[in-house]
């Protein structure tokens, strides 16, 4: 039997990922926990979490990605008002309906005010669930910021050790950085492949390949991604008459898979996006063999991470970075796809708009909610936009 026949196809890999994503609960994490003693799993609210610190401590970081469009929010909307984004409510709803019972704790981050308050509300409603909150530094110019963040990670490691009953060693942390580097490097390669040959890997395919990393142990995810990279690189396809688009704004609450497909079907090649950006986060590998790997992780956060509206690095203009990204990806246009009521992404838009207009790059602003399930109207808007560019 030849190797080629054994290699999984993109279609089969995506189908597998879709199944994982659609299944409620965290079966892979439970299996991982049960396979050895001193293991635990923690739910990580978006956008970025220092996965290595948890994993090195025997805690599998599981990504929380909201409730999708199959969850009815029946309890949590009495706790958070109508003008709060959906993922805040759907995460609380998951807790209230027992869907997070397989997890041993939850971690939130300093990304926005509702997420900040959710950390408190969650811990009040679930007093037996350990809740952690990470304050990421927002002063990127301060020479003391890496030290501060390193100390913050050390505090998080103590929390993780309480969950698993096992403290990490420096070597554990180095090993965790190595495996997560491998995952991120493969994702970066897949992103590069899609940028260069978007007809070989649709975003509706790439997205679940990345998203499944929310659920799987990193070793398993790394293997799956390597298979996907091989399959995509050896795939055959033909370019279609579509516009090349950089999509931004969907870094926290996630659009339904069908919305991603609808955007592509409306005539777009999505050549870059910020979906699930926390799974890639860094621009390159985090140094693996330093004397203080916690400090290496902290420095990478401050100096070698991707732009995001939840980071306020005043050394750079996020709008100008978006223009550069559009140009380096040879994009014809930008779609700003914001989650309804998401303050960080909505606040990013006015400066994006001004700078994109000045740069002569067409853009389309759209809003979505994770729970939406009708896409005709939004698809129509995108088709009109695409046509205006194709037949300009």
């Amino acid at each position, binding site marked *: 039997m030849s190797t080629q026949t054994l290699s999984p196809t993109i279609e089969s890999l995506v189908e597998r990922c879709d199944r994982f994503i659609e299944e409620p609960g965290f079966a892979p994490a439970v299996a991982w926990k049960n396979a050895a003693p001193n293991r635990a799993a923690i739910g990580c609210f978006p956008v970025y979490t220092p996965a290595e610190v948890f994993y090195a401590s025997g805690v599998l970081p599981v990504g929380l990605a909201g409730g999708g469009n199959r969850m009815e929010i029946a309890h949590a909307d009495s706790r958070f008002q109508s003008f709060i984004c959906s993922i805040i409510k759907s995460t609380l709803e998951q807790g209230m309906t027992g869907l997070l019972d397989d997890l041993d704790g939850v971690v939130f981050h300093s990304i926005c005010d509702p997420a900040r308050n959710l950390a408190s509300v969650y811990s009040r409603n679930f007093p037996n669930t350990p809740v952690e909150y990470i304050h990421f*530094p*927002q002063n990127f110019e*301060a020479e003391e910021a890496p030290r501060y963040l390193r*100390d*913050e990670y050390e505090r998080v490691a103590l929390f993780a050790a309480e969950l698993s009953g096992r403290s990490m060693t420096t070597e554990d942390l180095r090993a965790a950085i190595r495996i997560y580097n491998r995952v991120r490097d493969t994702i970066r390669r897949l992103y590069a492949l899609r940028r260069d040959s978007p007809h070989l890997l649709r975003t509706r395919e790439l997205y679940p390949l990345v998203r499944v990393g929310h659920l799987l142990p990193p070793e398993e995810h790394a293997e799956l991604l390597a298979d996907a990279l091989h399959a995509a690189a050896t795939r055959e396809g033909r370019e279609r008459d579509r516009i090349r688009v950089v999509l931004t704004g969907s870094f926290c609450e996630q659009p339904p898979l069908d919305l991603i497909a609808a955007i592509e079907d409306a005539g777009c090649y999505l050549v870059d996006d910020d979906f699930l950006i926390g799974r890639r986060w860094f621009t390159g590998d985090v140094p693996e063999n330093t004397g203080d790997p916690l400090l290496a992780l902290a420095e990478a956060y401050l100096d070698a991470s991707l732009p995001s509206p939840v980071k306020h690095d005043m050394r750079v203009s996020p709008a100008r970075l978006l223009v550069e990204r559009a140009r380096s990806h040879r994009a014809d246009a930008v779609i700003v796809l914001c989650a309804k009521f998401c303050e960080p992404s909505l606040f990013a838009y006015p400066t994006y708009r001004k700078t994109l207009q000045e740069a002569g790059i067409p853009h389309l602003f759209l809003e979505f909610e994770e729970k939406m399930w009708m896409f005709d109207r939004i698809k129509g808007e995108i088709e009109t936009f695409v046509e205006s560019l194709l037949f300009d």
Partner: protein
Amino acid sequence: MTETHYQGKLHHLQKELMSEYYAALTASANGSGVPAAYLLIGGNPVELLRAFDILPVFPEVNALQLAVRKQSLPFIQSAEFMGYSSDNCAYVKADIGMYFGGRQTPFATIPEPSLLLCNYVGCNVYLDWFGHLAEFTGQSAFQLDIPFIRTASGKPSKEDIAYVLRQLHHLIGRCEEITGRKLDEEKLREAVRLSSLTGDLWAKIKHLTKRTPAPYDAYFDSVTMMAPLYCLRGTPQGLEFFETAYAELLAKAEAGVGPLEKERFRYVIEGPPPWPHLRAFRDMFSRWDAVAVASTYSTVGGLWEFGFTHDPDHPLESIARHLLEWNLTNRNFLQRYEQIERYLEEWNANALIIHSVKSCRLFSAGQGDMREYFTKRGVPTLLVESDLEDPRYFSEAQMRNRIDAFFESIAHRPTREGVTA
């Protein structure tokens, strides 16, 4: 119904001092040579600016002044025209609209900033706001990063304190560059000493509403005192204001005089006021003889009533502690529940009003949970929604109906002391 009058001597002094403050802002805008720093209310480190004679400008105060004068909407709309969402904080939109409107307001011409001091004290919108101001003004912002209270102790860690102190030293360096002068440590100590005395008086004023009747309304009258607390703290004028205010309010307390003829309900109120409709909102409570005896909003800039005081012998350390721990905005949401519980108990209140504003998610996100928590504890609790800046989100008839129904319902139920109100 006759209109209620709320004005006292301190209101007039407040107007006079704030007029002087705004005149100084206008003079700076017109080239007086006094540099201006934009900074935010949350735990504001205004003492450091005093040491350099830098004029503090609070965009939040400017925005609310626009709203009170019913001038905010055109600025909000011009920001929305630039791409700001109807769901973004309207303080930011009013400020950005005003900035691009030539910085002209009915009360002052706002100067261009020599320093954009983003004291990131809990509110994530602060970061976007000052990031945009940096982008629009071409100035770089100084991000003073204040780690949020996130441990079970409810206190900052020693690492947090050290981190903030080191940043304050950098901020001093930036102020030295702007003014061309070295830090005068004696001047800093003096500003901190004045703040310490001011804060102590403010704490005493806050405790006066434990008396029955409360000598003033701890929401609608406290907000009158908040502008001098931020814009004038650390100056002799600021201290003079609070000496006058304390004397006047103490005399009222001693005389058993309150803001209303009769005090029937004592409530705690959570959340910022609806500035564009402040008077209408106040009257909705007055008609029920209801007085706010404590408010969380009046602690966004500092929590002096729970024991904080600036320390002139350790000026930077006390500024750091003020930023980190002794203000509402950097404390977590459950600490706010504790704060409200203390008010309910120690200020002897019999109801909780939650004014949920769309603009400020720091305040409002999760207030449904807060309502659930206090309702289950037997505290009559009402949650009403509007906005702090955008006049379009205030439905007067609906608001009045809900407040009427609330007080109607608690008028006939036993209070915590077992007597009918």
